[in-house]
């Protein structure tokens, strides 16, 4: 744990403005020169329920949530359930304070809204405060907000208090409020923030702050982005102008960003009756030559299985997004998990012929989105981006220049009418859309409306002109050609070198992970090395076709490796063993599936006790599974 960081947790109920307040706060800190990273925890409810957002800020780059946190702003839950239901739900009103105490670091700060929260309702509160050397600020934010504006503005009051205690100049926040708020509510908000700020300075001695904000400086201009923003912008820069979808958490974020922006870019967004239709619409648009996408989360993606197979068989370019959440079935809708890996790799009947990418960071999400469109259209193959609720919602700073790129509207091997005239046709003029040869397995396509391009696309096996055929030789030729694309794609991806290794090259041990765990694993690796354990990490961002050789080289270079993933059945380890066919005896697993992403500390502990010391895992929320035969 670094002492020179602020991890500010704002807690309340859904609907209390937690998300927007924390976003402004994070942006203000970013603008001041700090690196920021947010972690969001929320229930599947419109109003009420325990919600918090953590903003971690440091002068050094941050790429994960921290271990616990050091500043709590407990607003109280203004939408708490009726006290009569207390026997079942507990006292909801006091939850923003009560439920956040376990993870608050020693010496941390508590600011609570005494207008809504009564610590007398929390068992042993005073004792715990003393034991942990917490600094408590009891502020009636509710009355303060009510007197000068509206009660809901107590989140602004809380930010004013935070600024006073940690030494953040109010101007930094004010500037953002001026950008984001309409005139009518702007003035009362600014007044409330100022009053709260002054009140703290009057009533408390803040000259020697308990927790202060670090100072830093960026080399270049930064932007605050989420994984969902990055995926949407990547799609737009690849010329994607058609999206079809059905709302489902957390995929809804990408769908919303695209739907809000496509009309002004002359694109089309369709909210349709179900996810089967959504995927089918994307196929229909792509068949006409348009760059199109769809996506969903677990259950909705399950409905896309059959259209996905149709895209594979008809070789229709298609990009699908799968935003994982905790399953099975409805599971825990707002909680992250990486348990849809096998679902995305194998769903739909027959041999799967698809590409699956799993970006690890916000910056990488933009890259992966662009790469997905390039591969889908170049190779006429469905390409999926699998990510999760963690990456979709986390905000972090990325250099603005990362997004300053040229657009790429290229639709790959699609012929013009002039080119079509040169292509083989049947006697009556039907275009050979599915030729047996074709470089890298790709047979160029035409699109409806083009002269000289007519063909039949069908989910049945088909001959070069597209007609249904069950001829064994044709079948094998077509299957082999489609499979050949995957080899060519693997070679392309190897050239990209998207696999990220972190830590000393000659390390004794390895950690293998995929997707959104990257940042947390890398922070754990740094700490392990600081503490004298020689370890490096490899994050795999391409799951199909699998980077077998790169992973083999990595595993060959270490004595033992721990596979870190957020699910209960070690799916990524299983995939790795299946693809490599070796190394099973050296791969143990550290799993977490309780709905909360890993903290770096948990990986450090899991690694140390199990891989280095062969001991028992301390009482954290993860699970260790030894290597096969161990």
């Amino acid at each position, binding site marked *: 744990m670094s002492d020179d960081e602020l991890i500010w947790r704002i807690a309340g109920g859904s609907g209390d403005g937690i998300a927007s307040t924390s976003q402004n706060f994070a942006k203000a800190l970013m603008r001041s020169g700090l690196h920021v990273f947010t972690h969001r925890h929320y229930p599947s409810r419109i109003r009420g329920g325990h919600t918090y957002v953590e903003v971690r800020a440091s002068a050094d780059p941050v790429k994960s949530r921290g271990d616990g946190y050091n500043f709590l702003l407990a607003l109280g839950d203004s939408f708490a359930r009726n006290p009569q239901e207390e026997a079942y739900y507990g006292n909801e009103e006091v939850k923003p304070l009560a439920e956040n105490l376990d993870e608050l670091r020693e010496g941390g700060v508590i600011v609570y809204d005494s207008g809504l929260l009564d610590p007398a309702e929390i068992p042993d509160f005073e004792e715990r405060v003393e034991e942990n050397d917490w600094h408590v600020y009891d502020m009636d934010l509710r009355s303060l907000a009510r007197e000068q504006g509206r009660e809901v503005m107590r989140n602004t009051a809380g930010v004013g208090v935070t600024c006073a205690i940690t030494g953040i100049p109010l101007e930094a926040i004010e500037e953002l409020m001026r950008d984001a708020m309409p005139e009518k509510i702007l003035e009362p908000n600014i007044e409330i923030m100022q009053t709260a700020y002054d009140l703290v300075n009057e009533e408390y001695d803040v000259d020697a702050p308990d927790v202060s904000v670090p100072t830093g400086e960026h080399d270049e201009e930064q932007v605050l982005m989420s994984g969902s923003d990055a995926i949407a912008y*990547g799609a737009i820069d690849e010329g994607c102008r058609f999206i079809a979808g059905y709302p489902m958490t957390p995929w809804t974020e990408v769908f919303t960003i695209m739907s809000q922006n496509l009309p002004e870019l002359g694109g089309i967004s369709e909210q*349709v009756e179900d996810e089967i*239709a959504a995927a089918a619409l994307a196929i229909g648009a792509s*068949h006409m030559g348009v760059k199109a996408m769809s996506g969903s989360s677990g259950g909705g993606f399950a409905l896309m299985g059959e259209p996905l197979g149709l895209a594979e068989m008809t070789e229709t370019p298609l990009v699908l997004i799968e935003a994982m959440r905790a399953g099975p079935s409805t599971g825990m809708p707002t909680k992250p998990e990486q348990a849809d890996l096998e679902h995305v790799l194998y769903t739909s009947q027959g041999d799967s012929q698809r590409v699956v990418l799993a970006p690890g960071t916000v910056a990488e999400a933009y890259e992966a989105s662009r790469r997905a469109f390039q591969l889908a259209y170049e190779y006429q193959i469905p390409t999926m981006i699998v990510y999760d609720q963690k990456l979709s919602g986390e905000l972090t700073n990325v250099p603005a220049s990362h997004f300053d790129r040229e657009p790429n509207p290229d639709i790959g091997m699609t012929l013009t009418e002039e080119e079509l005239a040169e292509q083989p046709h049947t*006697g009556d003029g039907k275009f050979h859309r599915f030729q047996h040869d074709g470089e890298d397995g790709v047979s160029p396509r035409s*699109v409806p*409306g083009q002269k000289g391009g007519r063909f*039949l696309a069908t989910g049945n096996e088909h001959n070069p002109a597209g007609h249904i055929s069950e001829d064994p030789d044709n079948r094998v030729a077509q299957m082999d050609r489609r499979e050949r694309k995957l080899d060519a794609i693997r070679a392309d991806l190897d050239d990209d070198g998207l696999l990220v290794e972190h830590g000393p090259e000659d390390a004794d041990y390895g950690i293998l992970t995929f997707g959104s765990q990257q940042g947390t694993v890398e922070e754990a690796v740094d700490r392990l090395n600081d503490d004298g354990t020689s370890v490096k990490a490899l994050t795999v961002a391409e799951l199909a076709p699998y980077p077998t050789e790169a992973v083999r080289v990595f595993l060959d270079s270490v004595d033992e490796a721990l596979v870190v993933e957020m699910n209960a059945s070690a799916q990524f380890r299983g995939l790795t063993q299946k693809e490599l066919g070796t190394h099973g005896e050296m791969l143990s697993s550290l799993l977490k599936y309780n709905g909360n992403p890993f903290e770096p500390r948990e990986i450090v502990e899991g690694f140390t006790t199990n891989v280095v010391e062969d001991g028992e895992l301390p009482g954290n929320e993860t699970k260790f599974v030894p290597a096969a035969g161990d």
Partner: protein
Amino acid sequence: MSAFSAIGEEREIDRNEYTPEIEPQPTWCPGCGDFGVLKALKGALPEVGRTPEETLLVTGIGCSGKLNSYLDSYGFHTIHGRSLPVARAAKLANPGVEVVAAGGDGDGYGIGGNHFMHTARENHDMTYVVFNNEIFGLTKGQTSPTSPKGHKSKTQPHGSAKSPIRPLSLSLTSGASFVARTAAVNPNQAQRILKEAMEHDGFAHIDFLTQCPTWNKDAKQYVPYTDINESDDYDFDPTNRADAQELMRETEDKLYEGEVLTGVYYRDDERPSYQQEKQQIGEMPDEPLAERYFDDDYEWERSYDSFIDKHK
């Protein structure tokens, strides 16, 4: 200049252009009503001035799904029940293409029923032909959504306890702006109705009675039939929704009593198509989206220019 020179091409079209030269052996049985749809379509397409390469025929699964194997145009043989979502996106992507979707009664009213309801509701500018033979043919004779109550089959050994779906009423209630029924045994009417449906700017649904001589021998051959638009017994105005609703119900009931009523039941030429609605609210470009990808001069927008500032 358009990248799609087949679209809007003015020339004489011979109906034989729609017949593949090396015609695949039809998998339909002798006497199958599906031949009637194929024939009517080959007749209607030249009449509306659409060439094979500006036509996209999207089908589902079943005997009816083979339609585009025997009609030479652009074709998309999709999966069971999903012809409509594929077809309507194709139309949105390139509205210049004539889009016709087709499938059976199981495909359209059963597994794809949700899409049928929503496509009708949205009033996409396309034609949808449902081959209604009151049976599942390709899987060998199971009870379908339009089989009469009491219909016995291997999967309903005691006779179906379900009343059949009411395709015309469902279509009207869902929002289709053109609803008709015709029959394979009535080729002239079928061709005329198909032509009107394709010329209609909106969702045109045709419930096409196609006799199945193999698996539904008990079913009527749909003769004799009455054309409600021609018959003196029916003084009927298809632009009157209330009258249409009443006559649709009567038609659906009478089919199972042995009387076949056909014709155009409803048309609303005033209602804007979905494409027009979307363009009106600024959610669809005036130029076909598909053209943009072939236009070397198009200035593609960048996220950096459009959106980056709000993240600073």
